[in-house]
């Protein structure tokens, strides 16, 4: 009998011991599936990973994966979206194209959220870097890259939303909520500072492996940012500085199409590119986004978005090699073949079946992969051009023309026309040349996310886009996501 009592005391005692002395340990588990914040930012490897996460934003929906074409091109006279599709893509492509700009458009929302993710990651890295023990040269380079990316993301935010909340440091949850719109001039000043700092420390030569920001990328972006502020002399200087580097040149006419179909990536004409890789088989999951957009693949039955407007291909002069490289006329007779491999033989490209006969009879040819099975999502690993050397000539031409240096401008813009195999401009009339340079810019940078913002800064948006539904004062910028207004009492909506 006593044995039973002893057993009970034993078991009870054991239980109570377990729960009072080991209880805390028992109910504390070690996190094994990753790294916890306080153990990070310790060494060069951590810094490297943190920097990679800043780059990651380039490939996100809100930046150079999708929103760049929706916000920059679908909103312009180059795209006439007619799809009746429902769902995340068709509906909102079309809403952007038709100027039904609502705060919940997933593309503008993604621009906002992804942009700030990139900025946060750059800010925290720039704060932590000084205390990490590592090679000082490497540390300086990484700081330069982070600053370059921060400027790139702020630039994209300002384009879409104009005066946006601004910070270069990591804040608390409450401090973030208190932020309000900051005048874009202050943000542009910071971009200039960041890019100048970056250009000072970044190397001229391409990184190995390729893809990191270089001195040319920083200076080139600086040139565009000056251009957007009508700081003509600075824009010209920056563009000239890139040209003087001597490390870039235009590819040959026969290779023009290959800049955009994945067969000539990181070429001598490339200043900065989104390094798209085919990676995630479960591309719908959206966790790894380094995948150029399958979503407007013309071969997916229900995904016939992104229809070029007639104007987008009618603007090309006869013989302009860029027409076929940029737009595919689906039902053209004779078929709209092109010489992709430079052997002089015109052939079908892309070779797969197209499904874009519903609307407009045209599809973008830029960004369709060469030699890939287009029913496979991971075939769409075509790099997207963020900064191309051709733009430097256009920036330089525009800036010099505005400064009155028409001869300089003419030489630069003709570099582009020579490559396009069309006659050179001859006019030195500043006004005439201004129009010509602008037209040339539209043709050269077609579907590269520039058109709407160029029209905007030239003050031409109302004139050109008004007939399509654009209303000045209402569609200059996008409304911010509604949820942000709920969370940030000092934030105002556009238009007010």
């Amino acid at each position, binding site marked *: 009998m006593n044995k039973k009592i002893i057993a009970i005391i034993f078991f*009870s005692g054991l239980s109570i011991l377990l*729960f009072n002395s080991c209880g805390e340990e028992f109910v504390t588990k070690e996190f094994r599936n990753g790294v916890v*914040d*306080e153990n990070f930012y310790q060494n060069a490897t951590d810094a490297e990973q943190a920097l990679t996460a800043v780059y990651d934003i380039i490939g996100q929906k809100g930046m150079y994966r999708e929103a760049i074409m929706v916000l920059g091109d679908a909103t312009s006279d180059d795209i006439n979206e007619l799809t009746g599709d429902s769902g*995340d893509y068709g509906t909102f492509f079309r809403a952007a194209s038709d100027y039904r700009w609502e705060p919940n458009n997933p593309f503008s929302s993604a621009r906002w959220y992804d942009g700030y*993710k990139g900025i946060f990651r750059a800010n925290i890295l720039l704060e932590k870097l000084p205390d990490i023990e590592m090679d000082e040269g490497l540390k300086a380079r990484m700081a330069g890259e982070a600053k370059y990316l921060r400027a790139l993301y702020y630039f994209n935010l300002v384009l879409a939303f104009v005066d946006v909340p601004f910070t270069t440091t990591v804040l608390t949850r409450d401090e973030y909520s208190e932020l309000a719109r900051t005048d874009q001039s202050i943000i542009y000043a910071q971009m200039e500072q960041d890019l100048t700092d970056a250009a000072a420390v970044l190397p001229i030569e391409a990184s190995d492996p390729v893809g990191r920001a270089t001195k040319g990328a920083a200076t080139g972006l600086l040139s565009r940012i000056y251009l957007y502020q009508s700081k003509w002399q600075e824009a010209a200087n920056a563009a000239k500085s890139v040209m003087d580097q001597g490390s870039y040149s235009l590819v040959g006419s026969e290779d023009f199409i290959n800049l955009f179909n994945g067969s000539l990536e*990181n070429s001598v004409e490339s200043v900065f590119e989104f390094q798209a890789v085919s990676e995630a088989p479960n591309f719908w999951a959206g966790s*790894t986004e380094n995948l150029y957009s399958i979503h407007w693949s013309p071969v997916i039955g229900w995904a016939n978005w992104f229809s070029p407007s007639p104007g987008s291909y009618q603007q090309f002069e006869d013989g302009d090699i860029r027409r076929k490289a940029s737009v595919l006329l689906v039902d053209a007779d004779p078929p709209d073949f092109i010489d992709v491999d430079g052997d002089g033989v015109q052939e079908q490209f892309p070779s797969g079946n197209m499904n874009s006969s519903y609307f407009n009879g045209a599809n973008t040819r830029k960004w369709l992969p060469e030699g890939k099975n287009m029913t496979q999502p991971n075939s769409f690993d075509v790099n997207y051009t963020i900064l191309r050397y051709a733009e430097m000539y256009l920036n330089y031409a525009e800036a010099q023309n505005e400064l009155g240096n028409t001869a300089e401008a003419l030489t630069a813009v003709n570099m582009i026309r020579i490559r396009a195999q069309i006659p050179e401009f001859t006019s030195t009339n500043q006004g005439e040349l201004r129009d010509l340079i602008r037209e040339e810019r539209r043709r050269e940078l077609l579907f590269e996310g520039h058109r709407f913002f160029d029209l905007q800064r030239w003050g031409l948006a109302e004139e050109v886009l008004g007939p399509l539904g654009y209303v000045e004062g209402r569609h200059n910028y996008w409304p911010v996501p509604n949820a942000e207004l709920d969370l940030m009492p000092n934030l105002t909506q556009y238009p007010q």
Partner: protein
Amino acid sequence: MKNYLLSLLIMTGKYACYGLIIHMMTLSTLLATDGVAQYRSVKEVPITLHIENALLADVLQQIETKTSFTFTYEESDLMRLSGITVQADDKTLDKVLLNIGKTARVHFKQINDNIHVKPAKLQARQQVVEVAPPIQVSGKVSSSTDGEGLPGVNILVKGSSVGTITDVDGNYSLNVPDDNDILVFSSIGFLTQEVPINGQSTINISLEEDISSLEEVVVVGYGTQKKSNVSGSIVSIGSEDIAKVQAPTFDAALQGRVPGVYVTTNGGQPGGGVFVRIRGTGSINNSNPLYVVDGVVVGAGNDENSNPLATINPNDIETIDILKDAASTAIYGARAANGVVLITTKRGKSGKPSITYNAYAGIQEPVSQLPPPMNAQQFAENMNTAFAAAGEEEPFPNPASLGEGVNYMDEIISNGFITDHQLAISGGTEFNQYYVSLNYFDNQGIMLETFQRRFSVRANTDNQITKGIKIGNSLMYSRGSRFDNNAGNRTFIHGTFTDLYQALPTQPLFDESTSTGYGGPTDTRLERRRNVVSQTLLPTRDDVTDRILGNVYLEIAPIKGLTFRTSFSTDIQNNNRYFYSPIWEEGLLNSGGLSTINQDRFNSLFWSWENTLTYANSIGKNNFTITAGTSALEIEFQELRSTARYDTDVFTEIVMGANELVTTSNSEEESLASLFGRITYDYDNKYLLTAAVRRDGSSKFGPNNKWGVFPSFTAGWRISQEAFFGKGLISDLKVRGGWGQVGSDAIGNFRYLAALSTDFGYGFGNQNGQASLGAALLDLANPDVKWETVTEFNFGLDAGLLDDRLTFTAEYYNRSRTDMLLELPLAGVSGLNETVDNVGEVLNTGFEFGAGFRQITGKFRYDFNANLSTINSKVVDLGGLDEIVAYTYSGSGATVVIRPDQPLGIFLARRTEGLFQTQEEVDAANAIDGDPNSPYQNAGTGAGDFRWSDLNDDGRVDNDDKEVVGSPIPKFTYGFGGNLGYGNFDLNFQFFGVHGNDIFNIARSQLEASGRAYNKSSTVLDAWSGPGTSNTIPRPHLQDPNQNIILGDHLIEDGSYLRLRTLQLGYNMPQSLLEPIGISSARFYVSGQNIFVLTKFTGIDPEVGFDENNSAVAGIYQDLYPQVRTWSIGVNVGL
């Protein structure tokens, strides 16, 4: 300290090991006996035993383990006698005992398999070992009401442990030690009766029915309580009621049975998800109750598509006890916020083996007939109209030539089949009881290739190994496999049922020219849909789950009223999934020249160790029970997923050389440590009090808030027990009330830590398939995150009238959930997504009524039950937020939102004002804002398009023009049913109903969508084609310029329904026919499940279920596997 603990653990391990060995031995003995109450004399039993200088107790224990005898003794001091030596080689037991008796001066007396040990009297002349003279008493126990023999009646010799039970006919036979003893006859539902033997050898008695049956006990968690004295809110369901519903899982059997318990399925797919909501949905987090099977907490999971409880065989369930209010569930503390469902499986009873065989087989068909998809000609005409409206060339020059085309719905849907076989054997001796069962269940669904199969075995035993010590186990193994073709995953693109509507009737089913022989899309103008038959039949699949669930317990009762119980439980699940699809090319679609193999493994291990100490006693009229306990549990989960693709069909397993190979793994751990206690007190069964408290520590929370304490109190007054309460019409009356707090830890692990995600790679070097690792914070940590707390008041009244023939229960509850665990969005400018915080409050209140009436004796027997529950849900506060978006429908924005002062999860949409009938109406609308050029809705809006309300009066319709258009929460739910018996016939039925809820029929926006080049429901044949032709179905237009697809209140439908859940007609074969063939009972029945549903809802079924990711999302109808009607025949046979 650590060393001490270690040694304790080692000792525990040894004890557990001994326990197991002893257990195994007794179990095998048990199985070896033929179960008939025959026994052998000590003189016949040989034994080999060598033991030196031992305690008497040890020696006797050794003998117990080697023989079927059990020693009983009253004076424990005897057992401390030492110096006993036995050297026996195959000697008979009586000789061995004789020697022991001489040394120890004790006297042995054998009765059946028991040997009584007493101190030997001093005049030790008489035999030391005595075999009692076989005084045999036999007879028959019958019911006083109908004179039928009563099986399973316990018969005990008063003041001893000698006893037996009656067989199926009520007969018994018992050897008694003394002809002056008294026999005690007892059985649940009957009044206990004592009969002195007085030398009689035949005693036939009839037992009086205990009409009140209030002495039923209910399982209350770590114990039981007399039903009459329960003051919390607890409802029990017995096995008879569970057996009436032919469902693969027990939770479906609860539908409509219990007030306050709302059961809904997510479609009729075999083994599909079942949601149980006790007193409504109280949180946006996991709102499933806690399920405890024989003391083992089983994860109900939160998977809308499949049901983890489907592996548990409902035939094995004896009772289900549902703890509804926080006062009752507080003993389960941190995980009891959504109520607790306690499942007790069947156990053996002493007596000769009872063998039962239950089986049924049936066919299944869809309950509702739906509008078919359009046939080929209709589809072609519809497309021609749609293309022409968009200014495109008509794709079908001659629709009439296409005829019917292929009806893919008919190709996929046919009759289903269901069968279940259960063989169970139970019985045992007075000291060892067993229940063993075998089950096979097979359900082929009504959709091609959808099925659920289950094989399970169960062994439950209870063994009294010596006086006051019991060991036993509950153990189940099951193997289940299922496939539902993704039905019920509620996604829109490729929802299985939606696919059937959208499949092109012009696309041939078979086509010789493709690589698979199945037809595929060939027309680039139409949307390319995969051939659904090929998609279903081409791949090879497997989805098998093995599960071992059970526990082993040890119970020690050293003194009267005190019981110590320790039990170790485990639940091991292994799920293997396999998918192989060969390379295929069908028309314009192909697999990219690659085959696909998926191999996924999910393993989970749950263990818990629980110890309870219970002391029950009565002092005068004060009755009390004190329970104290500890519990520790741990859950480990691992998954491994691999996908490989090859450019050949040669490989069906993953080998080297894949064109693509992706493997991911994940593992998680979780633990919970608890201390709990409860005091139940009553004075003279009149005044009832209960207090309970539990303290839980969870690994889910950080050091700041790891531990939580959950108290509760209840009180009750049985007015009918008072002297002043005369025996009148009202036979029983009780009022009761309670207050309690419980918790919920329904968030993921490690939410208190700031973990970096490494999903942020970038493709430096532009190498396909590779990316550099990038790491960043995604969310903001909250180290202070803690439990959700539910605080609940409950008031109830139980009444019995007409000698308890009519019973009535009414309850009111007020359940408030505070500190709700919400994933709060952070301002996007922070660059982070969200943080978890304890904010907000949701209040659920409601009334519950239950009533029953029964007449269960006599030739005509009947009972009826009815219940009704109201739910009033209100979001009180969202921690300062104005709104949480629970569900967003693409293209329409927020669709289900949570707002303060509203019910949980209301619908938000546009208001629809019918269709524009003429262009003039459109023009007039465009001019409302004074500018006829700015569209009222969209630029291309024309006659035949929806007209929406301009709710904010700004002259145009956009996404701001939305308002609350409905709520998924029923005003009340109800159920009623009954059993009728006449002679050998019995009839059972059960209805279930829901009233006053809305369903958002989102599916219709797609199945009647005008802007897509796929097939649709034949209801679009009535689409607008000119002024006055339709005001509900818009014109076909390929580009849908008006975006008619946007959700409006025209899709809100009344979700009320009444369902005949089950109807069963049975016939019991007369005894006279069965006896000659050695069968003790046989019943045949025909049964219909889900025979009809009365509803105005136009979709497949009004039972649309919940969203697994967010409990607030309910009443959304997207894609659903049809509910099935089952007709079956069955048999119950007892041997």
